[in-house]
């Protein structure tokens, strides 16, 4: 019992330490645990360790349904290049990956389509009004501290109205600068290099301006020629090799730069404000589909995404929490087709977005919270086609916690959309990127339309006993996917009369968490979640043929029923002799059946690219002492058989794919005084303050260990075995 108490004390003290830097020093020294007290060398890593296993556990109490989380140390150990690579390990997620460093990577959750997924960057949704697709390959992990995936919505009711809107939500939380006592700045320099001529240097700076205020800046360059060998091989039914060819992927190069900067001011225990700048600029080749007689494409794409985002939040009178967010985003895209076999194309798009939100939460009683939020957003698309949209969101929510046995959250969201195409919706362009370009003409409809929808959600969590952490969860949620500008106004293909697509989600689940200790060492934990869900997508927006040669229109025709089971389990063992082991496994079974029209040949068939079975496993084994750490990580991803078109016939069959990834890393404190101080557990705190560690980290990654030749998307070959080496120095 005494030990349990100490852990809590520990957790609380760390929480306090993080919110008040000046207090950290004394708290650390007074901490009873050797882990922190005597290991300045791996402090940075362990800080995050702590946060993961204690702090977040406490914060999660707010969550009615615990999200899937990857954070801190785990993220670091994965050493993934982008958010998309990390998200593959979540259950219920399907990723579309067109291959290579520059290939577009989008995710959808529980078979509901990419546009149903909300991706939030520090609480503000990343937008793409044009086509609704967020390329998660663009978001590097360098500056990300935590990735969370919520089915439905974040179950904390203190959120912006828009956050209630998505069918599934990914939260990307950027690093918050933390300073050891007496340190005025942190710096990290990293160099990553690997296959496909990947070069990825990055630099990170934190500067402490005062006890409560800090600046952080982070820049990185990504360059890769995207050339990798791929192989297509087929055998005849009698077993002879029909063909076996290996070629080099062409036009998959990328050059990108990302710069981020933020000012944080944590001015009190409850309040802070933050100003954030983000800039991303890239030029890349679009490698295109590999089809007979075509081994390279000439498409090029330039992307420039910039945004500035400001956040303020505080708690007033101990009961009233307020948060405000503002964002301005400016995105420019240029696309050209240089292929001399095709018609030359040049498209330019400019998207702008203004966003403001204010969310309030009032604690009426300790067990009853209510919240209300209002968001407004303006989107504008120009150059390629002119369209703009005003959207207002209004939400009300309430959360009830009955003695920690029953937690309940109910919310209602009103969405008010107003679209306009001022130029009569004239598209200035001649050709669509993904449409067989034959007969595209101007959209001559002058449209102004308004749309109002209300969507409810209800979340429940029941914990029958406080003795074990076993919870029964359930939720019901409705959400709309609004037509994008492309759906509505795309050159001759859009349909300005589209209704939004409606998703109804039903979920029941079970979660069980059991902390335990091995040889008197704390921190081991076993956790398992299982969820069954049923989703129904109606008025699904689908491309429908207009009759003449390849003229399509978008119609609300589709009806899809999705049934699924997600299971994920995690075991974390803190072993004797400073060893640790983490094992995670997740498995998803789902059916996503098209039930649009019984006359269709694909009626009752699984929708494209949704596997029945998918899963992943991750194992992390390591050893650490006061001045060094070594680890071995292994991960496995399995995506089962699926079909690449609507009909489940042999010609559309796509084989399963599975990859094994392996990485090893070592971390050493190379500070000149480090070794001398090792093991001196009871050094005076003043001495410890002077020896901030300098950590050298070297990691080696091998991806697709067995060099499997596979396509995630048909005709977009993925890389074979590839390597990556990372060296970083952190002070």
């Amino acid at each position, binding site marked *: 019992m005494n030990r349990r108490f100490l852990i809590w004390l520990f957790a609380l003290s760390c929480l306090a330490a993080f919110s008040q830097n000046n207090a950290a020093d004394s708290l650390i020294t007074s901490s009873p645990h050797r882990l922190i007290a005597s290991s300045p060398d791996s402090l940075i890593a362990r800080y995050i360790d702590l946060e993961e296993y204690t702090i977040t556990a406490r914060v999660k109490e707010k969550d009615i349904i615990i999200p899937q989380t990857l954070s801190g140390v785990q993220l670091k150990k994965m050493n993934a290049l982008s958010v998309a690579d990390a998200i593959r390990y979540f259950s219920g997620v399907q990723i579309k990956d067109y291959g290579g460093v520059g290939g577009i990577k989008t995710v959808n959750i529980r078979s509901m389509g990419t546009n149903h997924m909300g991706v939030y960057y520090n609480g503000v949704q990343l937008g793409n009004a044009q086509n609704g697709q967020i390329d998660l390959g663009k978001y590097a992990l360098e500056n990300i501290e935590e990735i969370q995936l919520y089915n439905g919505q974040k179950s904390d009711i203190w959120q912006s109205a828009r956050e209630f809107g998505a069918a599934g939500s990914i939260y990307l939380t950027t690093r918050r600068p933390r300073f050891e006592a007496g340190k005025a700045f942190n710096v990290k320099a990293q160099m990553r290099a690997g296959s496909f001529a990947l070069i990825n240097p990055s630099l990170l700076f934190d500067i402490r301006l005062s006890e409560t205020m800090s600046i952080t800046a982070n820049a990185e360059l990504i360059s890769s020629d995207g050339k990798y060998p791929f192989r297509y091989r087929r055998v005849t039914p009698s077993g002879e090799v029909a063909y076996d060819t290996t070629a080099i992927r062409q036009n998959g190069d990328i050059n990108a730069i990302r710069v981020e900067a933020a000012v944080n001011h944590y001015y009190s225990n409850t309040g802070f404000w933050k100003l954030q700048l983000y800039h991303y600029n890239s030029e890349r080749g679009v490698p295109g589909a590999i089809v007979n007689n075509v081994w390279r494409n000439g498409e090029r794409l330039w992307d420039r995404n910039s945004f500035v985002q400001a956040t303020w939040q505080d708690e007033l009178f101990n009961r009233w929490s307020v948060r405000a967010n503002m964002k301005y985003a400016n995105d420019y895209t240029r696309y050209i087709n240089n292929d001399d076999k095709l018609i030359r194309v040049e498209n330019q798009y400019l998207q702008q977005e203004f966003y403001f939100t204010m969310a309030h939460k009032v604690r009426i009683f300790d067990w009853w919270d209510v919240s209300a939020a209002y968001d407004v957003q303006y989107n504008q698309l120009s150059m390629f086609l002119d369209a703009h949209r005003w959207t207002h969101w209004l939400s009300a929510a309430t959360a009830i916690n009955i003695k920690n046995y029953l937690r309940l959250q109910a919310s209602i969201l009103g969405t008010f959309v107003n679209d306009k195409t001022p130029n009569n919706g004239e598209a200035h362009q001649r050709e669509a990127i993904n449409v067989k370009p034959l*007969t595209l003409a101007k959209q001559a409809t002058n449209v102004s339309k308004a749309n109002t929808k209300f969507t409810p959600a209800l979340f429940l969590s029941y914990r029958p006993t406080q003795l074990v952490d076993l919870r029964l969860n359930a939720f019901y949620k409705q959400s709309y996917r609004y037509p994008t500008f492309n759906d509505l106004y795309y050159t001759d293909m859009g349909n300005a009369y589209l209704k939004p697509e409606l998703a109804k989600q039903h979920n029941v689940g079970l979660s069980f968490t059991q902390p335990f200790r091995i040889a008197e060492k704390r921190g081991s934990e076993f956790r398992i979640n299982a969820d069954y869900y049923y989703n129904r997508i109606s008025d699904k927006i689908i491309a429908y043929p207009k009759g003449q040669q390849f003229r399509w229109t978008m119609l609300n025709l589709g009806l899809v029923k999705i049934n699924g089971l997600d299971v994920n389990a995690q075991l974390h063992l803190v072993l004797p002799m400073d060893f640790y082991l983490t094992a995670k496994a997740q498995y998803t079974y789902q059916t996503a059946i098209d039930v649009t029209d019984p006359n269709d040949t694909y009626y009752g068939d699984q929708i494209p690219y949704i596997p029945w079975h998918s899963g992943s496993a991750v194992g992390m084994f390591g050893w650490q002492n006061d001045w060094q750490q070594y680890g071995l990580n292994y991960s496995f991803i399995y995506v089962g058989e699926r079909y690449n078109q609507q009909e489940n*016939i042999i010609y559309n069959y796509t084989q399963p794919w599975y990859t094994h990834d392996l990485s090893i890393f070592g971390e050493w404190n190379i500070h000149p005084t480090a070794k001398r101080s090792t093991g001196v557990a009871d050094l005076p705190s003043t001495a410890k303050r002077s020896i901030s560690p300098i950590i050298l980290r070297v990691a080696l990654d091998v991806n697709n260990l067995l060099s499997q030749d596979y396509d995630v998307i048909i005709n977009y070959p993925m890389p074979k075995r590839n390597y990556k080496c990372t060296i970083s120095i952190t002070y």
Partner: protein
Amino acid sequence: MLDKSIKRSLLLCMIASAVLLLTSCRSDEITYPSEYEVLPMEPRELSSFAPNEPIGMYLLNEGNMGSNKATIDYLDFCNGCYIRNIYGERNPNVIKELGDVGNDIQIYGNRLYAVINCSHKVEVMDARTCRRIGQVDIPNCRYICFHEGKAYVSSYVGPISIDPNAQLGAVFEVDTATLEITRKVTVGYQPEELIVNNEHIYVVNSGGYRAPDYDSTMSIISLKDFRQVQKIPVCLNPHRLRKDQYNHLWITSRGDHKEVQPQLICLSPATNSQLPIANAPAVSEMVIFGDSMYYYGSHWNEQTMSNTITYGVLNIQYPTSNIRSFITDKTEKNIKIPYGIQVNPYNGDIYITDAKNYVSSGQLHCYSREGKRKWSVRTGDIPAHMCFIYR
């Protein structure tokens, strides 16, 4: 507590791995097999076919762009069956199969020619066996016709132009003996169908990529020096070009999908004068068979958000009078998007294909000359182009 948890997790891992193992691993990719379907037809001896009676029909399925799913099916009148994806089975060694977006198929001599638009090639096969002989690389090729041992192929891509919006198309001449390109001539924007008539090639220029500034001309190329000798205005966004037995040229246009309606015009090449056709039907594709023109029209209506689809047969001598549908048993409602038509010149059977939603299997329907549906069969994706083979 520890033991219990570990046991539990071990059990879970075992279940998970068992499930993954059960759900089959990756195996060798097998070449696409053909599928055979028996049709309600009497099998016949090959020798019982008259010389002018087709013994089979090849059907080219376009396949959606980027899917690499252009396939060739074969309708076998001898054995009374339908063979899906015959190319894949007969040519297993061709890397990445037939290609992406088939656009035309024709037989000339003993050879079968398939124009594969997005694979930038004309595939040349033996007409009897469908086995590959070779290929001719022509960028963005569209349609093919033949004359005196030469093949003529229209292509969207002519000379490299400075202005990306003004890229002219071309017609290529290919020697069918050597499969080499012998000559090339620049024509109008995005040329489509072409024919040879009286030592000249006629090709219609659609300008389909240039919407709304469509082309509306027909280029006339002299075969002697392979030069464009004339470019005459025809109709907006022309597509089909056929010759009838009176040496008249029939041209269909798609219009601009807005104000300008699709048109059907008839042109006398001797004088290049248009014979006016009042109230001509909207024709998407047609087959001229003697004095009859079998056609279908498929026209999208922005108001009702639906297709207006018509099936008809008209007399080319009196094109505006007495148009009737060639489907009489009211089964046309089962056809979602008509996408190809062919008429058996021997028995008058009419073949019409249905492309459905362009991304799933289509259908081939056979109608008797009386307009009664005889049978239907599943095809590849976007069945579109058909040609007959004779004994």
